[in-house]
Structure formats: C-alpha cells, structure tokens
C-alpha cells in the first residue's frame, strides 16, 4: 500500500514522458505530415498520450504534448477540450460510454442506461468508488443497427441486454482484479 507521500514522489520521479516505444510511435505519427506541419499530429498524439498516461490528459500531459510538437500549451488545451474523447479528468480503469442518441433510444437504450446505473451504483459522469468503472453517456457512435450499444476502450459492445451488461461488468471486474 502506497502512502500519499510516496505516490507524490512516484509521480515526481516518473514525470510525464513517453518511453522509447511510445516516442517512436509519436515520431511515426508526426512523419505522416509535411515538414513544419507537425501540429497536424496533435489529435493522434493526444490519443497516444491519453493511452500512455492513466487514460486522461492532465495539464502536465498536455504541456508535455505541446513541447513534443513545439506548439503553445494553449493550442493543446483548446483542442483537447473540444473533442469529447479526451478525458480532462481522471477516469476509472474502464469507461462505459453508452450511446443515448435517437436510434439507440428507439431500441431501448434508456433501460440499459438505468440498469447500468443500478448495477454500478453511479450516475452518468461518475466513477465507482473502487476506481474501476466510469459511466459516460455519449452521442451516436455509429452502431445504430446494433443498438443499444456502448463502447469500452477500443471495443464496441452491441445488442445490449441486461444479461449482457451483467456479463460485461463481470468480465471487466475480473480483468481489473488481474491487473491490480
């Protein structure tokens, strides 16, 4: 068990920086654009940074991305806050992003959302106390034919039913248990 002080220390020593492999990926992303247009890589590099540093973009992370791309920090803040996929606050290990737009709604997404809330005992936008799950309500994810649906990380979970939701929660709980 880490005490608060040592967590602080760990953060300090780790300070935000891509490791070698991440840096190579970052360079590959930048190389896709013409000389001097490295800002174009901002979106993909932010994705990379989010994946690399705890699933969210802290101010330090964004400042670091700005330095990597040689742009002003405010340019990163502007972009990161515009797009809904970047988390500007800490999130749980797994984020349930449940679609609530028209086509999912007509297929019963309301019931699924209520059910997930009950099962995890959190409201949309909140994270469970154990830090495993965050529930987010999102707008259309392009899976209207397979509604209701949600996204967890890179994966789409479609044709949701209460039973499926139960199974998904169990699945990720056990994954989280393995990780920790």
């Amino acid at each position, binding site marked *: 068990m880490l005490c608060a002080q040592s967590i602080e220390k760990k953060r300090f020593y780790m300070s935000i920086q891509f490791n070698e492999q991440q840096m190579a990926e970052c360079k590959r992303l930048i190389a896709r654009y013409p000389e001097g247009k490295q800002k174009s890589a901002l979106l993909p590099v932010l994705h990379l940074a989010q994946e690399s540093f705890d699933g969210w973009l802290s101010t330090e992370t964004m400042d670091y991305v700005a330095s990597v791309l040689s742009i002003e920090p405010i*340019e990163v803040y*502007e972009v990161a806050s515009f797009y809904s996929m970047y988390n500007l606050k800490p999130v749980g290990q797994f984020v349930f992003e449940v679609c609530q737009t028209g086509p999912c709604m007509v297929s019963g997404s309301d019931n699924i959302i209520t059910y997930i809330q009950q099962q995890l005992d959190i409201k949309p936008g909140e994270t469970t106390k154990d830090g495993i799950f965050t529930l987010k309500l999102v707008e259309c994810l392009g899976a209207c034919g397979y509604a209701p649906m949600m996204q967890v990380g890179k994966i789409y979970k479609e044709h949701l039913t209460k039973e499926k939701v139960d199974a998904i929660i169990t699945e990720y709980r056990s994954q989280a248990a393995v990780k920790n």
Partner: protein
Amino acid sequence: MSEQIFFKVTIDNITIEVPAGTTILQAARQIGGTVAPPAMCYYSKLQGSGGKCRTCLVEVAKGSEKDPRPMPKLVASCRTTVMDGMEVKNITSDKVIDARAGVVEFLLLNHPLDCPICDQAGECHLQDLSFDHGKSATRYEFQRRTFKKHDLGKNIQLHMTRCILCYRCVFTADQLTNKRVHGILDRGDHAEIATHIEKSLDNEFIGNVIDVCPVGALTDKTFRFKNRVWFLKPMDAHRDCPTCSGRVTLWNRGDEVYRVTARKDEWGEIEDTPEGKPGWICNTCRFDKKETSDWVIEGPRAISRQSVIAQGHYAGNVGMTKPTETFKAVNGGRTPHLLLDIHDESEVNQPQLHLGKIHGPSHGDTFNNKIENA
C-alpha cells in the same frame, strides 16, 4: 499592369465603385449610415476575424453582372467580396431584418443583461445592436449560462458570462503578441475564453484585447467600477512612447485621468496612425500613465452624436453627419435615383410629375408652380 480593377456594387439602392477584393461590409461602410450592416465579430484590423456572429448577414439579390442569379442564402457581408454588378439588400430586405432580429435574440439568450453594473455600458456594441435590431422582451425562460470571473493578470478582468465568443481577443493575441496564453476552450454552448490554468496575460500589447472586446467581457481593472463612461470627457492625447504610437484617448473627469484607451473610429475599431498602421497601444500607456502631465492633450475627442457618451459634451461628426438641408448634401453629394416611388403611394403628389426627374431638392414650389422645370 498594376492598374486596379474597380467593381460596381449596389447596396440598398445606392451604387458605389470599390476596388476588387473589397468585402460587402467594407463597401457598405464607405457608403455609411444605416447601409453599413452591424458587425460584432469582424474587426478589419484583425486578420481572419469575422463570419461568426452572423449579425452582418445580407441578402445578395443579384450575384454579379455575369451571373445575375441571387445567392440562395443570406451571406456574411464581412467575409463576402463584391462582384461587378452585385446588388445587395441590407435594411431593405425583410429577410435580413428578420434574421438579424433572430441573431440578436440568440446573442442575448445567455447574456446576463447586467448593463447597470457593467463598465462597458454606454460603449457596448451589443447594447447598440439590441437597441437597433432587437426586441424589447426575451422569450427565453431557462436559467442563463454563467461562468466564474477570472483575473487575466493584474490589469485585465475576464467576465466570461458576458462574452459573445467573437474570437477577436484570440486573434489579437495571435497577431499582436508572440505567445498566446488564452484561447477558446470546450465547445458548443459551453465554449469559453480561458487560459485553462490560471495564467496572466502579460505581453506588452495584450491590453488591446480590452479595446477589441465588443462587450464587457474583458475590462480594464484599473478602471473597473471607477466611473461611467458618459460622465467622462474623452480627450485625444499623445506621448512619446518607445513601444507604441502613443496616440490615445484619455477619459477624464476634471483633471483626473480615469482611463486610457486607443482611439476608435466610428465603427468602434482602432484608428490608424498617420503612417497608416493600426494604432494599437501598449500596456504602459494604457495602464500606467494616469497623470495628465504624462500626456500632450490635443483636444476633445469627437464622439458620435448618437452615443450616450456625447450627451452633454461635444457635438461631433463621428458616426453621423450633421443633417443639412439637402438630400444631396446629406448623402455625400449623391443624388438618389429612386428611393420610393411616391406615385404608387400617394394620390396627393401629382402623378404626372416624375419625382426621379427633379434635379436637386424639391420644395413646395416644385409641385405648385414649377412642374415644367421638373
């Protein structure tokens, strides 16, 4: 080779020739008066500004001589360039009046309407716009969006709740300073001007964001709540400034300098210096030189007679020409071709008299005795 091409454009029935590449708004401003559409986000001195607020929408009734088709939608006059033979309707178009009333309503939807305690009151473009094009009541019945106030350094206060997101201050920071630290964060109706983490704007020219702000979102902290602008006497003054042009307007009460701003023209934009450059002023001139002895006073600043600031002070000719007797003189030497055909409107005026053919001003005599001269 370098001969400039001129285009003829007709705005609200007044024809003018302007160089190719001129926008409809700039052409309309050359005509002046109510022909010029209002603009909340466009700022001629800031590259890339405009197109966002939609208050300057106009109807293009005829695209050009070559392609006379009307444009299907209203266009933003600040970002649409004129074509030869183009015909534009501003206040003569019902569609424009209707759309503009809509835009004013949208802009005021989440505006706090705290004019009684706002330092911008009296020189606020949103106030003017609402007065000219808005309605007296709102149909919005929900809670308005609010933000916390932010200090952007020791001299500038950001009151985001009043902001209409014109982006002018962002362009100003981009184009006048070498490092921008504030910007637009978030999106949609949550978008806000911010620095993300509390940062101060401390570039030597950043104070100009106060002058470009059309509303009371960015205000001068050295002036906040000190006085109302209409109690102050604006005076043109200058000083030998190593950083900027040093040409300013002082806002005095008695001998006391309450605030210093750049000089603004009738469209509320920074005036050019005699060298033809925009007269941006530096922070030292704006915030630190608050003694009359710092300045060489040139004389009273001419303020539009329509402005509340002119009340009880000086008559001037900025923004409005003093009415003179003749139509021609009022309209800068132009004789109107046809504004309204009274034949269609009135039985009193003799139908055989073609008003369009009367040279110069018409008087009772024209109708009573001198028809043959018409």
